[in-house]
């Protein structure tokens, strides 16, 4: 078996008196789509933040393609190959869609003041490459017509897709998506599921946080379940669906589904192909 793309080893994170993550470990294989689920406050976004270098773990380590991430700066981690989107969309509002994605592409470039000032070949090459790659990604997301629209003026769904395009522009090996379907209607969710599969087919590995069970069951290869900062289950969607610990964790959150007679954890009936 190849080296895991990401290995999270015994990560513990405490702030003040709160233990946000408690001895969490899991690994992601290349080409996998791994889902990270759990009730609110379980520590999912915190986990993302540790992986992308936003938080330093109190104990444990994370390694990416065999390389430990300890002490690395955030932009270095991105250059290493981990990219992410945000739960509450953080696009560069006053820049156009194209410019947003090009910032992502810039992560792989090294043009500086001198190259820019004298329009040296490196600048010209990197600008062309960046723009081409950005347009390609916008096309992939269906946003090419809106490339010159300000990010602030895009629709909610377009903004979410733009964020994914921007993250992809950094040429990551691992793409971390934080609730990419939040606020989407069922049709949009289904399109997103296809999109995520297409992303994986392009060669990316995906780590996904999501609340929508149908989407998670339908799109992921494996799932890790967190509750109160601890990992309580790990396995394929079928295994997770039937895991008593997971069901118990969600039981408290499931008054709505009881009321509508839906099962506590829905199956991947609408699996996208």
């Amino acid at each position, binding site marked *: 078996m190849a080296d895991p793309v990401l290995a999270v080893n015994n990560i513990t994170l405490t702030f003040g008196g709160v233990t946000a993550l408690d001895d969490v470990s899991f690994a992601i294989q290349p080409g996998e789509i791994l889902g990270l689920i759990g009730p609110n406050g379980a520590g999912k976004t915190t986990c993302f933040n540790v992986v992308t270098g936003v938080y330093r773990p109190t104990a444990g380590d994370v390694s990416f393609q065999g390389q430990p991430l300890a002490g690395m700066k955030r*932009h270095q981690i991105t250059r290493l190959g981990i990219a992410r989107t945000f739960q509450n969309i953080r696009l560069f509002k006053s*820049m156009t869609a194209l410019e947003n994605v090009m910032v992502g592409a810039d992560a792989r470039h090294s043009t500086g003041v001198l190259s820019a000032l004298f329009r040296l070949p490196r600048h010209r090459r990197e*600008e062309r490459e*960046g723009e081409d790659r950005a347009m390609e990604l916008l096309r992939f997301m269906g946003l090419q017509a809106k490339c010159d629209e300000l990010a602030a003026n895009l629709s909610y769904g377009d903004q979410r897709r733009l964020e994914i395009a921007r993250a992809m522009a950094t040429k990551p090996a691992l793409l971390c998506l934080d609730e990419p379907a939040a606020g989407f209607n069922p049709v949009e969710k289904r399109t997103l599921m296809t999109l995520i599969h297409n992303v994986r087919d392009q060669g990316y590995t995906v780590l996904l946080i999501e609340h929508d069970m149908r989407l998670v069951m339908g799109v992921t290869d494996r799932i890790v379940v967190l509750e109160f900062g601890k990992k309580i289950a790990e396995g394929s969607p079928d295994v997770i669906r039937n895991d008593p610990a997971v069901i118990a964790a969600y039981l408290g959150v499931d008054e709505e589904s009881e009321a509508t007679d839906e099962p506590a954890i829905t199956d991947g009936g609408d699996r996208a192909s």
Partner: protein
Amino acid sequence: MSSTASASGSSSARERRSFRTRISALPKPAKLGLMVLAALFAYALPLLEPPFITTPGTDFGGVLFTVAVYMLVALGLNIVVGYAGLLDLGYVAFYAVGAYTVAVLTSEHGNWPYLLAIPMAVGVAMLSGLALGAPTLRVRGDYLAIVTLGFGEIVRLTLVNTPWLGSAAGIARIDRPPSIELFTIPHLNWDTGVPLVDFGQTTIFVRFGVLDLIPYYWLALTVIILVLFGDKLIKDSRVGRSWEATREDEDAAELMGVPTFRFKLLAFAMGAFVGGLSGALFAGRQGFVSPQSFLLLLSILFVAAVVVGGQGNRWGVMIGAAIVAYLPERFRGFEEWRVMLFGAALIVLAIYRPQGILPPRRTVRARRMEQEIEELEEGTEEEGARG
């Protein structure tokens, strides 16, 4: 908001935007031609002595020089504040460093020729920018403002208290730029209401003397044009994008791979470069420097120029600088009220139009899209009004 109010508001906005869109929609050679014409006009301005614009009682060339230097400073500060989003309230420090470096090198301390002193002045200013930035740019945004303010004052107080730098009296007998006297150009005279060529009022091309300040203005104008080019080249590149991303959302930018600290430091260095250059020009024209020319008030006026004009927009900040520098000279009685009026302008602008007179421009394509959207909206507005 009543419909009539919004209609009239948007129609003037429409007109304004249409003018700018029309200009930017012109084909490239036409735009180039317009710019060359504008530049020629700028050079010729002091010779033309247009009646309502010239400043009574003060040498017009000198006023134009001051305006030009302020514009240059505003361009430099625009990089720091407008592009990178770093509030620097002590920018006058770089200006002072540039001026004093030229002073120290060209006066009896060093006896260097003026032109050789300029690169040194710029270099020292850049170094001071890096020295200031390296420790302070890790500090939170609003604290950075106070730290830079402190730094500006530390520089000034050091100048006042260091005998080697002339203390309160400053340094005199600074070298002027080198002159080559080629030919003489007459001015226009409007005394009779009709422009007449006046051979009594002439400017020698190019003599940097004491009485006729127009050649200094020409020098400053040339520097501005060069800086404008450099600014555009750098802004429309990875560097400019990284600055904008850092300004918009520093954490997200870092997570998208932008080495934000490095770029913030770069912005400081670039800003210091331009600031130092302006200071060097100022010293060459003035012939002496003293700490009195570098008060905190000047830093605040510079920031006012950038904010009023439209931070992030190189033309906007130049307009802001022109307003800050020109109005008190043109309306002499205005001088006293200048600070109060600018203070009031800052409050009003902060509340009603924080983006300034000219907000940052976006790409030509984006503006064209906006115009299309506007036209669509106008169509529906009219229909709504009729219906």
